[in-house]
């Protein structure tokens, strides 16, 4: 059975082009303008093995001032994507200040080994609007739609079951 790889045919390219363009657009369209930046004061408490609150939402551009305390042992704080790192001892509050200029979800993790579950002591800072998440969702669903369109146009092709259930 001679077979040209269907993915390379002109028909397929024509079919998938709109999806590719849509994906590209989703990737590139500028994010909506955010509300006026404000100052956000957050008190964050570290205990074995969680941060309270576990999820913090701020807006892009906000100046974030975190007061970090520990209520049991020595912990740490590391913020993915921002590269901030501190150590916090019980009873001594730490002040962390930064401008949340990058949108998306960034995990903050304990940075000082504090017990067995230390590597999983994780919280989430969501800098909204969470454009990377929506872009990722859009891209994935566009890919899904493209794939369905591609499967739909297989209509004309003969698809043989490699080992059909009834062949034996």
């Amino acid at each position, binding site marked *: 059975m001679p077979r040209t790889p269907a993915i390379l045919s002109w028909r397929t390219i024509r079919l998938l082009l709109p999806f590719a363009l849509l994906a590209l657009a989703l990737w590139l369209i500028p994010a909506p303008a955010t509300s006026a930046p404000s100052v956000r004061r957050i008190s964050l408490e570290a205990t074995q093995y969680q941060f309270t609150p576990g999820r913090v939402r701020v807006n892009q551009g906000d100046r974030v001032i975190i007061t970090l305390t520990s209520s049991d042992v020595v912990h740490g704080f590391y913020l993915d994507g921002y590269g901030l790192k501190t150590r916090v001892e019980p009873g001594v509050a730490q002040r962390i200040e930064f401008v949340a200029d990058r949108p998306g979800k960034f995990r903050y993790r304990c940075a000082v080994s504090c017990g067995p579950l230390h*590597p999983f002591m994780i919280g989430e800072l969501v800098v909204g609007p969470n454009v990377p998440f929506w872009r990722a969702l859009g891209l*994935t669903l566009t890919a*899904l739609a493209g794939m369905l369109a591609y499967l739909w146009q297989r209509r004309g092709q003969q698809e043989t079951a490699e080992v059909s259930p009834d062949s034996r």
Partner: protein
Amino acid sequence: MSEGRIDLLARLPFLKAILNSRAFQPALMLATLFFFTLAALTGLFGTPAGSRNFGIIFVWIVWWALLIIVLVPFFGRLWCAVCPIPAPGEWLQRRGIISRVPGRLRTLRWRWPRRFKNIWLQNFGFLGVAIFSTIILTRPGVSAWVLLSFVLVGVILSILYENRVFCRYVCPVGGFIGLYSLLAPLELRVKDTQVCREHTPKDCLIGTENSYGCPWMVFPGSLTRNTYCGLCTECLKACPKDNIALNLRPFGSDLLVAKERRLDEAYKAFIMLGCALLYSAVLLGPWGWIKDWANMETPAHWALYALGFLTITLLLLPGLFWLTTVAARRLAGQQTPLRRLFVDYAYTLVPLGLAGWIAFSFGFVLVNGSYALVVLSDPFGWGWNLFGTAGVPWTPLWPRLIPFLQVGTLTIGLLFALDIAYRIARQHSRDHHSAFLTTLPIAGFLAAVTVGFLRLYLG
């Protein structure tokens, strides 16, 4: 049958020579056994701080990343060919390590019960480890005992039964490696099944003076999938007809082999997908109380956690998929029994589940990879500094890259799963139209799972 295959042994004579040598596999097994022994020793006698202990870091970060991101997706069961766990048992049976010791295997020759000739034991074994995983992953001592108990069970089973009964029917790791190896672009097969049918001595099954009979109890002549072939290449050493091939092939070929799909494997797919989602939420999520429950803060809380874990993997996920299958079957007016469709469509979860596991692993492997340098210099956490890297500070590697890797992997897994869904649907449908209709509800399920992962990682 062999369309789109490239026989590596025909192309690469040196590879064939290496694989034909009796010393090659034991050499690799001895190497992994060395690291395994070190992991067990450091686990038992080293520091209780997991992130400073060689056993924890090398097993659950280095080995795990290698296995799930590289070996399984690209080489299928290759790990099983070099795995140290069955080594002591196998060598005891054979009364030797390298050369073929004449005579039969030394065992009590019990018969493995028929009702266990499937992967249900592996399914429940994996779940058994999974509900304790928060403890196992973080306590060096517990981790070491779990590893050692695998070896012990392997040895006991190889005293009672011939061959690698442990690998084939018991090992909790082997179960998912087997399932996900369906995807790999590498396969061991025979070149011509006719040659095997006519060759009645079946040297590959009984062994020769230079080879043992297949330790996985598989007949190469009827191999159509990777699941139960451990790539040990004993058959290559046995076959007088030079009929064994090691093929490169398109990804996922085995998922289309309809006649071998089974409920136990389908359940393995649910369990693995469920665990990937649950681990992503429990270990990498922001909910401290779940971590406390999983960490056995109180027995009652842990019991609730375990109950929830088992309900989600064994009932909820399969239940939702069952409903999806009902919808798919109605929509296309298919005649195939519902149970059969349920089992068959569950194989679409193989690419998506593996993608989920890879995405989950990206979430902690890059962040904690730098510990590997530390424990290499100071495996026990006793203050050694063998290679001068004991003082390397914890340095997360490219945390900004992780979401991209995760989204990319999940999208590839989703597209792959959709393609497989359509092709499986085609096996049960009269025409393209009804196959496409059937694919839609399945696509909905796969998309929902993918969105769930994206929500956990990025949302």
